[in-house]
């Protein structure tokens, strides 16, 4: 089977610009402090956000986040010079797209265009890159970035592309934040997955991008990869619009499919949003998959550090996984009050731990019961 390598990463989060900033934040393990949404129209119970700093107001906020991350990922992959050889695709996941285009008072209402599609972020990246080739927008809510990466890997494995720039992005949208608020899914304190006192999540802005290449393509240009996509599993609960299926049957299936015959992971980056039921179901599902080793496989809870970035979440999880693979170390998690005794997972908080097995599994779950798991492992 065609090898799919990760040869470049880019990240934009509330912790700053660049994978280096993310790495530094991971090492520091300091919880970010949510701020009040700077939108006078956001009349919410908990108008909290973890914003990407320094983005000028105006149209196309999500596009600016994602193109910034793409730019970094290309530099990281040594792909500054164009034209690139081979067939290049773009697959971007986003829950909300450029929703601000249609929200009152958030941008110029009418630029004369007859139709302004919301999900134009992959198109924006393609136009910015001048890239002919596959260009796909996927909107599987908070798992969108994970599905995007899996689709990108499929494109390479099926021989339809040699290289795909893929990941996820979401920026502030009044509708998205308000809907989460109405669902009672916002923690008024901070994002604290697996904490006994967790009360929901904190929505955040962010973009995570990975450059995926076929092994042959990467080797031909002498690229050094972070690792390879070793497996991917998809499933759908077909159960409830928002709540996970309580037994976790389908998320277990997705994880097992992703792990395939490659054995257990050395680290798991869980979906772990901080909502009560999701963290509980995921913990129990992990115990089903990891069995007696559950207490030995460290989790790295990325959302405690960067918030819940929606469609970017799994892509940023993948960036974190790449950084963990390269360093060989699982950073300590952002400290929580007291771990929920019902969430029986290993969440190191007192210091970094060695990555015993060079294989990291990333979980991505979403409203609509959409589940994706994928595994990054050290390339041979």
């Amino acid at each position, binding site marked *: 089977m065609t090898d799919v390598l990760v040869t470049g990463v880019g990240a934009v989060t509330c912790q700053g610009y660049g994978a280096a900033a993310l790495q530094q934040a991971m090492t520091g393990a300091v919880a970010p402090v949510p701020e009040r949404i700077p939108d006078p129209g956001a009349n919410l*119970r908990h108008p909290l956000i973890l914003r990407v700093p320094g983005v000028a107001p105006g149209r196309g906020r999500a596009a600016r986040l994602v193109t910034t991350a793409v730019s970094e990922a290309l530099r990281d992959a040594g792909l500054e010079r164009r034209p690139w050889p081979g067939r290049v695709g773009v697959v971007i996941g986003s829950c909300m*797209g450029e929703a601000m285009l249609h929200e009152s008072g958030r941008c110029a209402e009418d630029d004369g265009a007859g139709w302004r599609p919301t999900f134009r972020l992959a198109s924006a990246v393609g136009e910015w890159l001048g890239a002919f080739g596959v260009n796909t927008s996927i909107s599987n809510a908070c798992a969108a970035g994970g599905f995007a990466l899996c689709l990108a890997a499929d494109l390479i494995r099926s021989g339809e592309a040699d290289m795909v720039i893929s990941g996820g992005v979401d920026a502030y949208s009044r509708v998205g934040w308000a809907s989460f608020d109405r669902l009672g899914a916002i923690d008024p304190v901070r994002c604290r997955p697996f904490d006994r006192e967790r009360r929901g999540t904190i929505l955040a802005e962010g973009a995570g991008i990975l450059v995926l290449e076929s092994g042959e393509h990467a080797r031909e240009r002498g690229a050094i990869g972070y690792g390879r996509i070793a497996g991917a599993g998809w499933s759908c609960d077909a159960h409830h619009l928002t709540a996970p299926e309580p037994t976790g049957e389908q998320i277990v299936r997705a994880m097992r499919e992703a792990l395939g015959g490659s054995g257990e992971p050395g680290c798991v980056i869980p979906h772990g949003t901080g909502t009560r039921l999701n963290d509980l179901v995921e913990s129990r599902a992990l115990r089903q998959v990891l069995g007696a080793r559950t207490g030995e496989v460290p989790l790295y809870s990325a959302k405690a550090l960067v918030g819940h970035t929606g469609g970017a979440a799994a892509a940023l999880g993948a960036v974190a996984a790449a950084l963990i693979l390269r360093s060989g170390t699982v950073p300590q998690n952002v400290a929580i009050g007291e771990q929920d005794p019902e969430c029986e997972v290993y969440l190191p908080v007192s210091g970094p731990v060695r990555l015993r097995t060079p294989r990291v599994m990333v979980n991505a779950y979403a409203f609509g019961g959409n589940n994706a798991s994928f595994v990054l492992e050290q390339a041979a």
Partner: protein
Amino acid sequence: MTGDVVVTGVGIVAPGTAAPTGRSGGPRDISSTGAPSGRSGGALDGPSAGVPSGTSGCPLDGLSAGVPSRTSGSAPGGRESWFDVAAELGPRGYKYLPPASQYLLAAARRAVAAAGGLEHAAPHRRAAAVGTNGALRAYFDDVDAKVTGGHSDDLSPAGAPYFAVNVLSGRLASEHLLKAFSLTLTSPRVAGFEAVETGARALALGRADVLVAAAMEHGLPHHAPGLPMEQGAVAIVLEPRARAEERGAVVLGTCFARAGFAPPGLAATSEGRRRLAEQVERAAAELGAADAEVYQVLDGSPVSRALEAAAGAVGLTVRPAVVAGGGCLAPSLLLARSFVPAERPRLVITATAEGNFALAGARPAPAHRESRAPAHNESPAPAHNESRAPGGRSPSGAGSSYRPPQPTGSQPC
């Protein structure tokens, strides 16, 4: 790579074509404003596998043209008068779903019934891939108004999950126990074709044994000013040929889709023209039918013009361009209606100003093509709201060009 995937069921729900019980065949009913009106009509005829009848001869029958006013086509509460939710879906549990969700469920029910059900595959081998651009725009308008003018507490908690468009696909998955996966594609205008392409690829890679590929939209006039309004849904059941034949399913034909991208600023360059020509030629070769026709859903953008020029060179019969609406439904509707009795193989192409373009080919099964009544054996008339330049394209495909959409009125087929 999409492997040998066949179509075993098609379902269409769109203005003037939806009917809970009757067979299609009645005249299309379009109000003077261009809005659909009156009762639902039949999209599908009965047990012969849910083939859209297309009796009016217009492949875009049911999509309203022009600029209908909201009130002319909408029931109280923003519900569209052309769609009878209780008759289509049942008296309970569906009334308050977003309209696009209702259309999707109704279209999928028809497609699944036509395919003989999905029980031949275990739930974890059934999948969904749904394309949309604006399924929830009306909901977003409503939420935004309530939050800016009031408070998030004013939102219905039952409606709040619908900020995420994939929830509509999830509702479809719940109804048919589609547990293999559920994908929601949203690329401008080509998302419906991407649902077919992505779904077929996933089938070929063994991620599922059967898939419902769909497109849905619920556009309102102000969402795409001056463009045809898109409301409705299309669903197509896809499965590997070997599996369909093994279970004795009626194979309606084959279809494929290929989506691509041409940077808008580069579409008219020699490189852009070359790339687009390659895509069209490849799709035409894949279709492999000298008698095929090319249908176009275009928006007058540089990418559309470049694609149209490329299509003109393939040697197939090229139909005049249909004006694209604000969504991805029109191309998918053309694709779904390609399985009309005795229809010729069809290549549908579409593009958008953002740079996305796509091509989809449909080839009805020979037996299916030959077995239908002559009454259905008519070529589709020029599609509604078609645009032809003076001295425009002949059926042979020579010398046409795009003309911007007219802001008012409709042109019945």
